[in-house]
């Protein structure tokens, strides 16, 4: 059985995702596959995406992968990356098309003529390294409290937010390249935001599913840490 399947629907290069997963999980069998049966049998599924969402949706269906992706997103550790995050939602302004509808909400474009606080033009695509502000259930100051007796530090599942942030500094920078972003209807799903210049959701999670707008496979040590956390994640 494949430990980790990277869903290949012919949109772009999945080699970097595979290399990065290999680096954090050298023992795992990792397969880039467009075969629905492989995706269905895999222990974990990574769902990447590049380019334009209408093309991604079309190719996903052309290869008969929709059902396998839907099933994986509902039943096993699942990581969406970039367009692989956007496709999970109901609707995208890119091409005005429906998405997979696993999560409620839509995908919208950054406004034209964005400016930062100093009045400088902000380019679209949003490209480069931006800070990722993890949503943590407890206030910021409490992160510095001493470890509780007998416990492993602060118990990152609670004070440090989602387990996929384990060991990743608050406001660590990740590599982004995108012109559209997601607006989840249920804001409780949001696990992190970035500013451009307004805050937007850059990570969402529900049950066994985690999805990010940035590229962990291209985000050096912070990205590898997130992938390592995903590989070790056992959601209930």
């Amino acid at each position, binding site marked *: 059985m494949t430990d980790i399947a990277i869903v290949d629907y012919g949109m772009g290069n999945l080699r*970097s995702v595979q290399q990065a997963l290999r680096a954090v999980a050298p023992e795992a069998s990792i397969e880039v596959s467009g075969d629905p049966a492989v995706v269905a049998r895999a222990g974990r599924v990574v769902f990447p995406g590049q380019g334009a969402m209408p093309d991604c949706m079309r190719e996903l269906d052309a290869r008969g992968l929709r059902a396998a992706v839907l099933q994986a997103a509902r039943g096993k550790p699942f990581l969406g990356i970039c367009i692989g995050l956007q496709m999970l939602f109901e609707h995208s302004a890119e091409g005005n098309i429906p998405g997979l509808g696993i999560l409620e909400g839509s995908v919208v474009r950054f406004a034209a003529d964005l400016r*930062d606080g100093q009045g400088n033009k902000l380019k679209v695509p949003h490209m480069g390294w931006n800070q990722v502000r993890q949503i943590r259930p407890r206030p910021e100051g409490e992160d510095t409290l001493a470890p509780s007796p007998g416990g492993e530090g602060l118990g990152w599942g609670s004070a440090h937010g989602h387990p996929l942030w384990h060991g990743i500094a608050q406001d660590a920078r990740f590599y982004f390249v995108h012109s559209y972003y997601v607006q989840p209807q249920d804001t409780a799903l949001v696990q992190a935001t970035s500013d451009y210049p307004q805050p937007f959701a850059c990570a969402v999670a529900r049950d066994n599913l985690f999805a990010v707008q940035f590229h962990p496979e291209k985000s*050096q040590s912070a990205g590898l840490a997130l992938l390592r956390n995903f590989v070790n994640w056992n959601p209930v």
Partner: protein
Amino acid sequence: MLAKRIIPCLDVTAGRVVKGVSFVQLRDAGDPVEIARRYDEQGADELTFLDITASSDDRGILFRIIEQVAEQVFIPLTVGGGVRQVEDVRNLLNAGADKVSINTSAVTNPQLVADAAARYGSQCIVVAIDAKQSAPGKWEVFTHGGRKATGLDAVAWAKKMQSLGAGEILLTSMDRDGQKTGFDLPLTRAVTDALEIPVIASGGAGTLQHLADGVKFGGADAVLAASIFHYGEYTVQQAKQFMAQQGIEVRL
């Protein structure tokens, strides 16, 4: 907020990194895989590899270099030089490039930019523009490693490339390349003001102040440099700390 990027550039020929002055007088700087790893450790935000000879023999060597780097370095890799058709883009992406830079062929066949962007997405298509000042406030595009004048205006050309689907512009001043006298700031400013997509300033960085000025006065989204890093004058980390002290947002 989004950080300004520092991108070391590795000009590669026959499997070695080299650096010239105004596109000639090449000097050996070392093994590309080793250099790539060093820059990654120093905190480089991306790496750019330019195959400056792009002969068919060298092509295989370049692919092996990119493959090796992509196995060890997990930051975006841009590769350019000798990209003539969509298949070249595909081969480089498959070797491990995240972005492919198109220069001469964008001029001889602009449709290539449109086709490659449509097929693989604008996010992986960089158009490299080599520009030389032709009159005050005017710059002309050159191709073939700076040997051939095109008559094209650099700002208008950059806008056309954006409209065809380029995701980013790598803008090199031929007047400044290798001179270490600083980026051509008016050129950088003119192009970056005219575009919605990010612009990488290139050609001429000789001091850390030059890098900072490319962002502060040129308005660049990223700065690319070779010589100042290759020969150990400065590390990428030093460059970032310097820029941060000047109030520029960087990834430290």
